């Protein structure tokens, strides 16, 4: 084979042994190959210097800042003529649209009125221009009268309550923006797939959506945000930026907030009880704001929720021991976490998720037998994914802490029979091999180890399997068939 054709293999580092020696000899003779190798070495060094400069170099940061400044300047410069052009265009187009609407449309109470007027367009443009002076935006208005309305805008499913007015702007490139003028809107936002951001403005608050379900209420001087799932980021001029998570409600009053900037923090969660108690009551108490006056909206949001959401919604207010237990467990407060989970399980003894969390808690408390018992409950009642996780962890405890290899083996077999593509398949196989070794079944252990080494190349489990296999071959021959453990 012509050695010159092996140049790429050499540069890739794929030549070994005799082939490498032969090519090295060839380099001494072939000027072309030697020159290419030299060029590549120089190029690779330059590439490394460039790459190092991009990460953590002060020069890069300075340049980045300069570029940012420059980009900001150019954006503003670029926007000025665009804004002037757009304002003019809007005045003309909105006048035409208004004329058409007046002549041909018959807005009814049942249908949302989608209107573009010159004043609205200008207002929207001005509002958007203040915060996001990047694009020229068209603002549309959706208004409801005596009935509710549901619309889909981009990836946002929007339910407007009676007497609600919302502006929205969809530039299809970067963001979908909503501005709640008055009333109550429920937002159901699909998870981000296209990178398009969803922003909701209500009074001075700006709500940045991460992919969630939430409700915004605006009435005179007050904005409320209730989050059902996921989280939203809230910020405003007189408000400290913060995240509002599922189950929390944020109430913000314009006048009060102006007087006392710390009010928002204190008010967070304080309305949660009110919100949840409103749900429980039937008929609603009219003295408790628009949410109570229009309970159908809250119910409709509940109807949108999936089964999990419905279960969550039906839990007693402020007694979500499962969520509390999970939170405490994550914080590492094991004793209160265990108590919360047990309290939850006393009401819902077949909740596999709670059993799984209780297993985690007990495992961390080193109560191994109890942890295995809890995991077994999770296996019994859990979804396939949850049961798999519980199987693996229970097997690990049985094997590592309790030395019960036979029980561990059963669980690992059950885990592996559900498919070798499980997240911990390599580790499970390795554990199976160890249990087999513990039971003295060396041939089966060797087979399992070989499977790990062959099918999970590149993982730490494969390396460990090879090591164990080597040890097994070295030491296992004389005592084949024996069981010392």
């Amino acid at each position, binding site marked *: 084979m012509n050695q010159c054709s092996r140049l790429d293999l050499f*540069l*890739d580092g794929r030549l070994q042994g005799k082939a490498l020696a032969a090519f090295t000899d060839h380099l001494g003779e072939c000027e072309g190959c030697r020159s290419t190798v030299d*060029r590549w070495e*120089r*190029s690779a*060094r*330059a*590439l*490394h*210097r*460039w*790459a190092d*400069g*991009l*990460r953590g*170099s002060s*020069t890069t940061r300075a340049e*980045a800042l300069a*570029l940012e400044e*420059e980009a900001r300047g*150019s954006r503003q*410069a*670029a926007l000025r*003529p*665009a804004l002037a052009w757009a304002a003019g265009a809007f005045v003309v187009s909105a006048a035409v649209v208004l004329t058409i609407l007046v002549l041909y449309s018959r807005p009814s109470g049942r249908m949302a009125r989608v209107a573009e007027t010159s004043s609205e367009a200008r207002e929207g443009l001005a509002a958007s221009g203040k915060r996001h002076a990047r694009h020229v935006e068209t603002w549309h208005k959706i208004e409801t009268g005596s009935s509710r309305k549901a619309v889909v805008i981009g990836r946002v499913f929007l339910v407007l309550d009676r007497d609600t007015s919302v502006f929205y702007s969809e530039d299809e*490139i*970067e963001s979908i923006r909503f501005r709640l003028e008055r009333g109550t809107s429920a937002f159901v936002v699909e*998870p981000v797939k296209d*990178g398009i951001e969803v922003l909701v403005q209500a009074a001075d608050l700006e709500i940045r959506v991460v992919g969630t379900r939430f409700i915004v209420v605006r009435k005179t001087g007050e904005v409320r945000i209730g989050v059902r799932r996921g989280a939203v980021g809230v910020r405003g001029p007189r408000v400290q930026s913060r995240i509002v998570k599922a189950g929390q409600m944020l109430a913000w009053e314009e006048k009060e907030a102006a007087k006392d900037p710390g009010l928002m923090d204190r008010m967070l969660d304080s309305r949660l009880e009110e919100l949840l108690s409103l749900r429980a009551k039937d008929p609603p108490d009219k003295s408790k704001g628009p949410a109570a006056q229009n309970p159908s909206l809250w119910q409709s949001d509940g109807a949108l929720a999936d089964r999990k959401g419905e279960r969550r919604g039906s839990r007693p207010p402020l007694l979500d021991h499962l969520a509390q237990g999970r939170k405490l*467990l*994550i914080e590492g407060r094991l004793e209160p976490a265990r108590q919360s989970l047990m309290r939850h*399980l006393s009401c819902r*003894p077949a909740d596999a998720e709670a059993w*799984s969390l*209780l297993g*985690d808690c007990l*495992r961390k408390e*080193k*109560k*191994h*037998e*109890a942890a295995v*018992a809890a995991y077994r409950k999770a296996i019994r009642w859990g979804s396939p*994914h*949850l049961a798999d996780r519980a199987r*693996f*962890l229970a097997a690990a*405890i049985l094997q*590592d802490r309790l030395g019960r290899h036979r029980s561990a083996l059963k669980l690992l077999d059950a885990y592996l029979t559900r498919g070798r*593509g*499980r*997240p*911990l*398949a*390599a*580790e499970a196989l390795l554990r199976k091999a160890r249990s087999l070794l513990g039971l003295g079944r060396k041939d089966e252990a060797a087979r399992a180890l070989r499977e790990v080494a062959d099918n*999970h190349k*590149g*993982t730490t*489990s494969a390396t460990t399997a090879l090591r164990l296999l080597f040890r097994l071959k070295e030491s296992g021959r004389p005592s084949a068939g024996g069981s010392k453990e």
Partner: protein
Amino acid sequence: MVMKATADEPAADEPEPEPEVVASDAALMVDLAGGDLKALGELYLRHGETVASFLARVLPFSLQGDVEDLCHDVFLDIKNLSQRYEERGSLRSWLIGVAIRKARNFRRKQKIHSILLRRNSSGGSTKRPPPDTSGAMTDCLDVQRAMEKMPQGYREVLVLNVVMGFTAEEISTALDIRPGSVWARLHRARKKLMAVLDAPLTVGEER
């Protein structure tokens, strides 16, 4: 029933403490899928720097803040993706795969944005300032030029293999392509890089 499960005391002759059962990347992913956000923190500590380095290198014309945002996006995404994670090679490759998709989306958005900006701008205001030809940055201008000209797929392979030391198998996992395609891309990327660096205007290595 509940009481029974928790009232069990640990065995009297409890074995000596061993390392935590759940420790590998895959195990952390399983914990993350179970809702344990500590696992996410641990994964970020292990792989955050790798992902950020990679993003900085495949998006060389982006601001530092953008790269960090993207890196955080990657780790926020894996919280959701952890349910579907299957161990096929190292987690590092899988994370780089997620980062690559993020980087591509980001570039696409930037491209659209710059096109719109150019359409609406009045002329030369969007031009970049002349590069600073003093100091360490000058050495890298040729490489930057080469990387700018190179297709994104080639750039990713070059950075992953030459700069970050990924193997062809790891790159094939990350990019979801065959190892043969990895080598092919690498050869072409290498030729392109050398061609640009050998151009007469070179100010890099030979200066």
